[in-house]
């Protein structure tokens, strides 16, 4: 395949990514001349919105096409995940503004790196070829490593970055190994071609293919933080700047889910039985370890890290089904998770002031007395993460459970609901500290306008999607079929 069809149509399809990357470069340069970080952040938001607008235009015009000789694709699936990324960038920027100055790490590069990382994720979900996928993944990962270590003066931030980097590099190696095994068997890295060659060359029972598949799944498992590849997550979540933790727990995770869905469904659809039987134990282990270990945490960032491991286990259930409806339930879950998780982290950031880290559960004691509104928001996020109606978290879980039962895995659902009851305990504990204990001292808030907007948006979305989920459900379903 010679790249001779490098025409305007191709550029059009990657326009959203290009805009985001250009914005990131502009931010880097602006950082040299402008001192006020708010302007840089604001430019970043404008660039993101522009990219989102172009992406929407592409989607609305019904374009679902591959570009660059079948290396890249823009379809409803990619659009859906792009939307998750846009939402998480904008919310992250909003919750970061004040926080980064509180942490005395107000750097212009921060916003540029966020955008680079997001464009990497967008390339990942648009990849129709394993090589492009790898490129996107590395762009995303490298930017995130740096963001994790941004608090240079704090030991645990540097430690987190180093840990994340080493384990990330390790997982990239797994991915490459998996890709090369697949390539060795099929002679192609194109996702579609792999699927047809699997059948044509009768490779479905081939042990080497299975090995390649396992390596690829392991690599994605690292990025998603599935047990037993989750070891990095608690330390990194705890050490990274909280805003980046919020970002990491939704953006890169959603991206890894997206590519996992695409690779498994498009390329390895013929060996669904095999990969489902690999994913089922991963999912069960994630739900179990995430829920149980979270019970013992006293640091709320660490607790949310384990909670996010458990949630990855639930979201994975949708992929295990191997049906389009199942995949759409995972997408739906990730979208809802984006709002509730960023919301929960936003509260933690709000409580972080210059001389008070506010990361221990104890620090939440009696919060409801002095800050009733903030506590009510946190209460909604906690119940949503538990999956209690009428919050969006329930819709997410319900849809996933529904599809996995439809696919015939009733016992898996029973395991899942039992762990979701166990997980209720540690979410409730946060509510308990806020409402049922006496305050220890005055807790100040680091309020700012963007923060309030981000909180209002997340709370409203958690409630609205919980009561009127139909639009999101149709959107998720349509982006797969359309």
């Amino acid at each position, binding site marked *: 395949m010679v790249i001779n069809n490098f025409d305007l149509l191709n550029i059009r399809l990657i326009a959203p990514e290009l805009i985001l990357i250009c914005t990131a470069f502009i931010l880097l340069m602006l950082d040299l001349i402008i001192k006020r970080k708010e302007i840089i952040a604001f430019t970043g938001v404008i660039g993101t919105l522009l990219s989102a607008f172009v992406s929407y235009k592409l989607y609305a015009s019904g374009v679902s096409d591959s570009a660059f000789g079948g290396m890249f694709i823009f379809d409803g699936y990619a659009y859906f995940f792009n939307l998750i990324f846009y939402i998480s960038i904008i919310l992250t920027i909003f919750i970061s503004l004040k926080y980064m100055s509180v942490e005395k790490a107000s750097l212009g590069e921060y916003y540029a790196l966020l955008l680079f990382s997001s464009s990497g994720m967008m390339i990942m979900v648009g990849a129709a070829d394993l090589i492009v996928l790898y490129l996107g993944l590395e762009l995303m990962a490298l930017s995130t490593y740096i963001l994790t270590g941004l608090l240079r003066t704090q030991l645990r931030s540097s430690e987190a970055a180093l840990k994340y980097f080493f384990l990330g590099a390790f997982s990239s190696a797994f991915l490459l190994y998996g890709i090369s095994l697949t390539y060795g068997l099929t002679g192609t890295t194109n996702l579609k071609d792999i699927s047809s060659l699997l059948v044509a060359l009768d490779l479905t029972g081939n042990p080497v293919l299975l090995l390649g598949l396992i390596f690829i799944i392991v690599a994605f498992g690292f990025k998603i933080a599935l047990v037993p590849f989750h070891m990095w997550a608690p330390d990194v979540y705890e050490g990274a700047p909280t805003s980046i933790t919020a970002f990491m727990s939704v953006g890169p995770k959603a991206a890894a889910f997206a590519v996992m869905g695409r690779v498994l469904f498009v390329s390895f659809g013929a060996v669904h039985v095999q990969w489902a039987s690999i994913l089922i134990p991963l999912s069960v282990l994630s739900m179990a370890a995430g829920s149980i270990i979270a019970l013992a945490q006293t640091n709320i960032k660490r607790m949310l890290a384990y909670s996010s491991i458990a949630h990855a286990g639930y979201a994975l259930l949708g992929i295990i089904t191997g049906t389009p409806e199942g995949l759409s339930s995972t997408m739906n879950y990730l979208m809802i998770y984006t709002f509730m998780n960023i919301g929960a982290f936003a509260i933690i950031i709000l409580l972080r002031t210059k001389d008070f880290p506010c990361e221990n559960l104890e620090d939440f004691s009696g919060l409801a007395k002095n800050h009733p509104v903030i506590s009510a928001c946190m209460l909604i996020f906690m119940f949503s993460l538990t999956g209690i109606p009428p919050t969006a978290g329930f819709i997410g879980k319900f849809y996933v459970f529904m599809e996995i*039962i439809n696919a015939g895995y009733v016992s898996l659902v029973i395991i899942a*609901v039992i762990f979701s*009851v166990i997980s209720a305990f540690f979410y409730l504990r946060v509510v308990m500290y806020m409402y049922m204990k006496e305050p220890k001292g005055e807790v100040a808030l680091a309020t700012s306008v963007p923060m309030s907007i981000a909180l209002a948006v997340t709370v409203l979305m958690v409630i609205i999607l919980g009561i009127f989920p139909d639009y999101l459900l149709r959107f998720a379903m349509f982006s797969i079929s359309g």
Partner: protein
Amino acid sequence: MADIILNHLNYPILTVTVFLPLTGALLILFIKNSTYVRWTALSVTIATLFVALPLLSNFDKTTYKMQFVEKQSWIPSWGINYFVGIDGISILFIFLTVLLSILSILVSYKSIERKVKEFHISILIMETAMLGVFVSLDFFLFYIFWETMLIPMFILIGVWGGQRRIYAAIKFFLYTLAGSVLMLVGIVVLYFYGERTLDILALSRLYYPFTLQCWLFLAFFAAFAVKVPMFPFHTWLPDAHTEAPTAASVILAGVLIKMGAYGFLRFSIPMFPDATKYFIFPIFVLSVIAIIYGALVCFAQKDLKRLIAYSSVSHMGFVTLGIFTLNTQGVEGGILQMINHGIITGALFLMVGIIYERTHTRMIEDYGGFASAVPWFAGVFMIFTLASIGLPGTNGFIGEFLIILGAFSANKLIGVLSATGIILGAGYMLWLYQRIFFETLSPKYTKQELPIPGDLNFREAVVLIPLIILVFLIGLYPEVLLSYMHSSVEHLISNVNTGAGKENLITNYLMEIF
């Protein structure tokens, strides 16, 4: 559309009734002054009663069909509708809920001093969720209301409760959640079996294979048995009732624990008739254990609230027994007893709350000789004590009598055993009465260390009078409630009996052995 009668009033009466309290809760968000908060909450609950009243006058008692039905498409992707309606069974619970909500706000006028706003918001959200459970005709809607209840109740117990409130709140939450999620799995299985519908009426018309019935019955049983609570799942109840503030105890005992039994009536029995018959014997045994065990444990209690909580376990044993006799007397008695228990136990918790405000102790040993100090209080307490025992002339008698009648025709031994529960009930209640009101006044009061508590005031009398009226009204003329449920109960029983299969034989055989 055979089983429904659309709402013929010119406004959506059920929707307004259900969501009026929620609107009130939103309104309270913007009120600062706590006196205004109290009055707003009270007026909203009273308004809800008045909005619901046309239900009584326009209700057609001659049919089992769902009435005042409203149906709107809600989540078309899943084929889920906003579908509400009531029949002769649910209408009674609606009024029980509305009445007890008013009383629980009234009784909290003095006793709730902290976080007044949050308290009233919780109660109002609670009322919407409870009403929602009784009117829902779509499983999804039902489940949303069912689970939503947990949040305000968790807060009510955990924030305004007694010493061990946090333990009690979390225990309550986790127990109920664990039961409910298993029901959720059952609901999803039904959804696919019914070809993607969660319409309760449509799903009730289907016939399910016996094995599936059994699994689904067990899944639903998990949720309802915890809620009732039936014997081995009852341990959350004494803690939650004891630690909860008076208002929450009243709602818990009055309405919340009725939902489990309501669930059996609305879902388990009509949908899984064969499984019901298959499991009937174990359920009888659990009910009888609950009746006798609950009563015996009452004798050992030192804490006033805990005693009444355990008496609830015993009384709810009667309810489940009655419902599962599957004959008219038993089922009607069971439903009536649920309402009665709501009134009587609700009243007892209210009275304990009232006296606690004065004495600040729940320990029975700190009382004694109160009949001379608070004669009016003692008199009213006597009425409810006798109603709880089931003295003829009070409502408790009618309910228990019907249940035992039903139990005898279902199984003689079970009938005899359950009747002993009434004797035990008389024992612990009268002994309790004796220890509180007779004997001599505690030396703390005679030596003037503590002021002698005052008698009922006007507000408290207003709270108790409607309940006293109901005790005698139902006791002397039960038809006032029974007339509503006749057609619905008959329909239910005839439905169950048409689906008699071979599984009956096993149960019959087991019953003969005993």
